[in-house]
């Protein structure tokens, strides 16, 4: 008992020291990690302390996305709508209420965006990407991305995610899984019906253009709108 008390004291001292160092290093806003900060360490070790994502294609930005969207993704990973074994494994035995709380936690964060992609892409490709994102392709019945994801492309409450702050390869990868059907959303799965109309070239164009956009002045998702979506989406019921 006595030993344990000493152990705890040592631990506390370490903990406080560490917190101080961490604070100095990251300029975090709160003095001590909250219980939620601690609970979600299994998330933030890959998605970044603020959910800002890491500099690779597997760990995207999750911060600031609408809570309902994040919740839909967590349940999809858990229940099989999205397949990524490390995520499915972590979430397998977590109940909905807790997943909602985790979703809200990350939805509330707005860490800085990464710098826009500067890699060399042919202007014609970017122009094609911009066209699809902002105008779609009526001839092929492809709606503009911004029709649902918001004019600022920061998403729309409650269920539509923002498209900025993501790597081109991540966006392209997701479009590929929508198209092949390995990523599902709540029915009707509108993104699947759009993705199957996209060619590889379209996907390259859209993802390259999106990754080059500057960080938004107002990163918050647009409020829910009464305007009808161009097509029915299970994750954004109207």
């Amino acid at each position: 008992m006595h030993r344990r008390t000493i152990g705890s004291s040592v631990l506390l001292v370490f903990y406080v020291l560490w917190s101080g160092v961490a604070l100095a290093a990251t300029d975090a806003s709160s003095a001590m990690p909250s219980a939620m900060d601690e609970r979600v360490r299994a998330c933030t070790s890959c998605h970044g302390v603020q959910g800002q994502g890491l500099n690779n294609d597997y760990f995207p930005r999750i911060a600031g996305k609408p809570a309902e969207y994040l919740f839909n993704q967590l349940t999809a990973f858990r229940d099989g709508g999205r397949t990524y074994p490390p995520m499915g494994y972590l979430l397998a035995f977590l109940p909905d209420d807790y997943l909602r709380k985790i979703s809200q936690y990350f939805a509330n964060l707005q860490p800085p965006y990464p710098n826009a992609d500067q890699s060399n892409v042919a202007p014609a490709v970017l122009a094609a990407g911009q066209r699809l994102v902002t105008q779609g392709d009526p001839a092929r019945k492809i709606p503009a991305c911004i029709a649902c994801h918001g004019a600022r492309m920061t998403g729309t409450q409650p269920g539509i995610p923002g498209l900025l702050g993501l790597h081109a390869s991540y966006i392209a990868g997701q479009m590929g899984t929508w198209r092949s059907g390995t990523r599902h959303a709540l029915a009707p799965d509108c993104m699947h019906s759009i993705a199957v109309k996209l060619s590889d070239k379209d996907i390259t164009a859209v993802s390259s253009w999106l990754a080059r956009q500057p960080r938004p002045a107002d990163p918050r998702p647009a409020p829910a709108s009464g305007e009808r979506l161009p097509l029915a989406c299970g994750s954004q019921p109207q």
Partner: protein
Amino acid sequence: MKPTLRSPGSLRALRTTLLNTWLATTKSRRTRAPFVSGLLIAGVIVAGSAALLRASHTPLIAEARAADTAASAPGASADTRSDIVKRGEYLARAGDCVACHTAPRGKLFAGGLAMETPFGTLYSPNITPDAQYGIGTWSQDAFFKMMRTGRTPDGTLIYPAMPIAQYTKVTRQDSDAIFAYLQTVAPVREPNRKHTLRFPFNQRNLLYGWRTLYFREGEFQPDPTKSVEWNRGAYLVEGLGHCTMCHTKINMLGGSSQSEQFAGGLIPVQNWYAPSLTSDKDGGLGDWSIKDIVDLLQAGISDRGAVYGPMAEVTYHSLQYMTEEDVKSMAVYLKTLPDKSGRKSGPSAPTNTNVFALGEKIYADKCALCHGAKGEGKLQHYPPLAGNQSIEMDSSVNPIRIVLNGGFPPGTMRNPEPYGMPPFGQELNDTDAAAVVTYIRTAWGNHGQPVTPREVNELRNAPLH
């Protein structure tokens, strides 16, 4: 699965010459469903090749959750169901029926869970009360006979992916209650999927061989020299709980012996180690308090450690719903399992100095924040690593996998918002991961053995889920 009943002497000899073929299911937790054994044809035992397999685990079960909620929903607002139905629901949870009889995103108890094996795929059956596709036309007698004998009403032998060697111990009264409950769930008009086992594994006659060796029909017999509480615990652990399906070692022939019951074992293919429940020397519960065992089983966390891997599923779907009284009785029984060897003692194993130093540094960088500078943990969400049997076990599988894969304890009624351990597989290479696991297994007086980068590497491909 661990058919664990003692074989009669005459068969024991046969058993050693027999190559038992096991199929293991891939379902999550109980993936240790071994199965099918020698062929008994015209009195001649022919054997299949031994194989301990387990298919990769299918993702779990959306509807099981819905199921959990749905099943408890009637209780939310004045549960008007009859007592036998309520008791049956409770017992069905004790038996964890939902985990196998509900498919991912499937309807409650409609079956269809794929259990893939190298011999083909098994699908759990629909046990809803649908007259055509479920068990709607079964009688209470027929259901009981199935539980007791491991045969469906038309006499078909059930593959021991179903824990028939354990469920045979269930009392008539409890079987009737489970049946009464199952008759109240929503009928689902979904046909059973046909097993797609290849020849000869699709020959159910194979099961006669397996049954001869491992199936002893008969209800649990209380030990009159023990307390009521102990007997209740024994009944739950050996019967509905079917704990032995994972916690008994499978031998080289794919069999297991009574003497090894509850002594722990690697869950084939799934690659988690189900620790011993008997000997303190390698796992074991001898020096655990009843409170810690109850906490671990029911809440998923305790002062001694948390459940993880396949056991997290058992707590999530089954144990968290059991009464404190029942879980306590299980703990009382488990603590009386034979404990011959006592805890490991003596100095820690020698390690390569450089490896130890590297591990110590990584530990300080990445682990000490939560688990403490000296592995003392921070109760109750950060388990101590010093003196932790999960870390010290002879098998290094679990500590390596936890470092690589991380994990959340299950979200339970007593611990609805568990703290997660981060995965480190993406940031530690094999050498680093081996060093830190070696460190935690040998520091602070721990009695584990060092691990090699190769052991780490092999577990990077272990099935997740």
